[in-house]
Structure formats: C-alpha cells, structure tokens
C-alpha cells in the first residue's frame, strides 16, 4: 500500500499518508518510491529529489513556495524550510 500521494507529475514533493521514520522506504501513489532521510509526520511533505536553496517547490503542479535551505531527497519539507513568495498581481491581469 502506498504511503505518500503525488498530486501532479510536475511536483517535487509528495504528501505522506502515514508517519515515516528515517530509513523507511516510502511508496508513492502516482509513481516511484523514496527512502526517507529523516522522520516525517503524517500529512507532511517528502522531497522527491534534492532541492537547493532558492528552488521552487511544486505541489498540485503549482508553486507553493521556495526553499530557504538545501533539502535532501527523502527530506522533510515544511514551513521550517520553505517560504511563500510575494505575488505579481499586475502580471496576472488580462
């Protein structure tokens, strides 16, 4: 049974549907598996690839924030290591 959900092929994080321990193999609904490098609480996000400081984080195929530090593949992605980027509303007008 899968214990993380990938919502869009573009995403670099998946949402854990069970708490994971460092070293656990997480099976991802939507494709693939990843080894957890730290404990991740239920409903939190696991990085599916190495993420560098400044990289955009994608969920739902959309940007949910930017990494404030480097995050390893299998690392815990949370409000502690990503932040919201201000919007450019003017450019969105049609």
């Amino acid at each position: 049974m899968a214990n993380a959900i990938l919502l869009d092929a573009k995403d670099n994080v998946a949402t854990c549907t069970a708490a994971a321990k460092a070293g656990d193999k997480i099976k991802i609904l939507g494709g693939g598996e990843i080894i957890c490098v730290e404990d991740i609480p239920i409903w939190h996000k696991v990085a599916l690839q190495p993420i560098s400081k400044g990289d955009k984080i994608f969920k739902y195929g959309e940007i949910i924030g930017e990494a404030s530090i480097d995050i390893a593949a299998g690392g815990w992605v949370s409000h502690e290591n990503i932040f919201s980027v201000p919007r450019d509303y003017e450019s969105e007008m049609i």
Partner: protein
Amino acid sequence: MQFWGYKRADGRAGIRNHVLILPTCACGSETARIVASQIRGAVNIVFNTGCSDVQANTEMSQKILTGFACNPNVYGVVIIGLGCETVPHNKLREKIKSMTSKPVISFGIQEEGGTLKTIEKAVRAARDLAAEASLQQKELCDISELLMGIECGGSDATSGIASNPAVGELSDKLIDLGASTLMSESIEWIGGEHVLAKRAATPELHNKIIKICADYEKHLLAAGQDCRAGQPTPGNKFGGLSTIDEKSLGCIRKGGTRPIVEVLEQAARPTKHGAIVMDTAGYDISSVTSMVAAGCNAIIFTTGRGTPTGNAIVPVLKVTANAQTYSWMADNIDVDLSGIISGDLTIGDAGELLLKKIHDVCNGRLTKAEAYGFSDIAVDHVCRFV
C-alpha cells in the same frame, strides 16, 4: 431534483423556518439569548459589534444584521436593541422591512425599562411568531432555490487532497442540476488566485478575482500587517500545510470547476445563478457569517483538524477526509470521507454521497452542530473600534 422547503414571498426558499431573535448590538445580545431560550422554534445570535464603530464597520454590521433577517431560513424577526447604539432597533426594523415582507418586531431595552420588561414583551412577540411559523407547511421547491455556501476550516493536507475536491465535485453536480454555490475566503485564494481566475466566465470577473487578492494584501500592509504571518495558522502548519500558497491551492478546489458567474463583495446577495465567489476573510466563522448574510440556505464545511462550529440560521454540514480526526470528533463531524485517502472511495463517489447528504439536510435532517444548537458568528471589521 427537488426538496421540501419553506417558500418565501420574495421567491426564495428556506430549508428551516426559524424565528430569529436579533440584537442590534452587543448590549442587546444577552437579552436576545434569554428570549430565544424561552421559545421553541426561536434562535438567537450573539453580536459583538453595533456600537462605537467607524462608518465602514457600521456598514458591515448592518449588512450582516439585515442579511441575517432576510435569510430565507428565517420566518420572522424579533429585534432587541438598547437605545444608544449606532443604528437603533426602530431604524434597523424599518430597514429590514424595506427589504422583506416577513414579520419584524422590535424593542429597545432602555425605553422598555430594562432587561426583564423587554424580555416579557419580546417573549410574547416571539411566541406569537413561532406559533404562526409552526403553521407554515413545507412545499416542494426546485433545487435551483438552493444556494449552498462552501467553507473550509481547520484545514490540513487532507483538505486539499481529498475533502475539498469532493466538495468541488458536489458543487459541480449542484450547478449542473440548476442550484447555486458560493465560495468565499478570498485571502485563501492568494497563491492560487491565478488558478481560480481561470474559471471566471468573463475577463472582468477574472481581473476582479486577482484584484481582490491584491487589495487584501494592500489593506493588511496599510495596517503594518502581513497576511503571510497569520496564514497558514499554527494548526494548518502542524497538519502539513507550509505556506499560504499551498493552503490556497487546496482551498480553491472546494469550489469545483464550473465557470464563475459572479464575484461578490462581502455579505452581498447574489444576482446570478451558478458558481459564485465572494470576498471574505479566511477566518471560517466570519466567512460563514458573511455567506449566511448573503442568503445561503445551507453550508458545507470541510475540515482536517476538526471543528465543532455551527450557525444559528443555516445548517452547517461538516466533512473530513482525515480518518483520525473523524474517529476523535465523530460527535462534531457529519460525514467521513477518509475512504478517499485509503483508496476505498473515489472523488466522484464522494461527490454523490455529499449530494445525498446535503439533499437530506435541505429536507430537514439536522446536522450535528445544528442539533447541539451552536450559533457561532464573527463580524468582519475594517479597523479598530472607536
């Protein structure tokens, strides 16, 4: 699809037939509560504004009070005023009477000679209204008379992944049947506003959605505040939501996929049928308050962390896709959608299930919060009391 409801003179239909005991201000709230407690069929709200406010705040309070009175779930209204508030009971009564033909009676605590004398008269008035209301028969109403408010509160990662898409499916089904839905919480569009705006039926509505988000940020900035400091909430973060963008992208999924035909300012009554959105706070209680004032006759409410909330006038049907939350708070939450996460329930089937549940509520089935008599409200404020 049809439901058994109460037809109103203005053409709308209620799914409840309450006598509303309505305070004009905070000072009338306790008296209103006592009056409602004496009368079967009466409900009250506890109002925290109505006095010592700047004009913009007074306008918001008045929109809420008149909107509550005009809500189709209300048969008639007994207003309890004080006498020295910004808009006294007689003025509020006349304003409501100019908007609806339903019975409206009002009393002022100062002119009646105190709380007990007011209670005596108001209880008699409310008793007579409740007796009249009890004689009104339910009639078959078309589902087009349903205006369902869509809310989420205490969100976690399950909200955006499962319960919100299920409610989005419900919204699409209802709109295809001819009903209308109203989604609000504009601050929780931020980060997903470009996705939501794609649903706009016209370029004007598209830009209105973007502008609401820009203006919300500017408004908070003018007071030296940053929306990203309060959103997501600590509970959201604990539940796996890291940024306002992540929360918003999950939030907007509860509105479904149908074209947005109207973009409303807070607590305004819709003029169109279909999928509608409204500018409100992300604070769930305040958002529901404004949707009830706008005329919603039912509310569906998704939660991840769990919430007990209910509204005095409009039934709130609560759903979660978090299995642990449902097992902990089954006394507060009406529908368990955790099967979506475990793979036992498709989003489409969940939408069908919710359609049946909301149809039952329209036909009179009490929600859990309604059975407990919950009556949360919060009136949004433009700035400080004065």
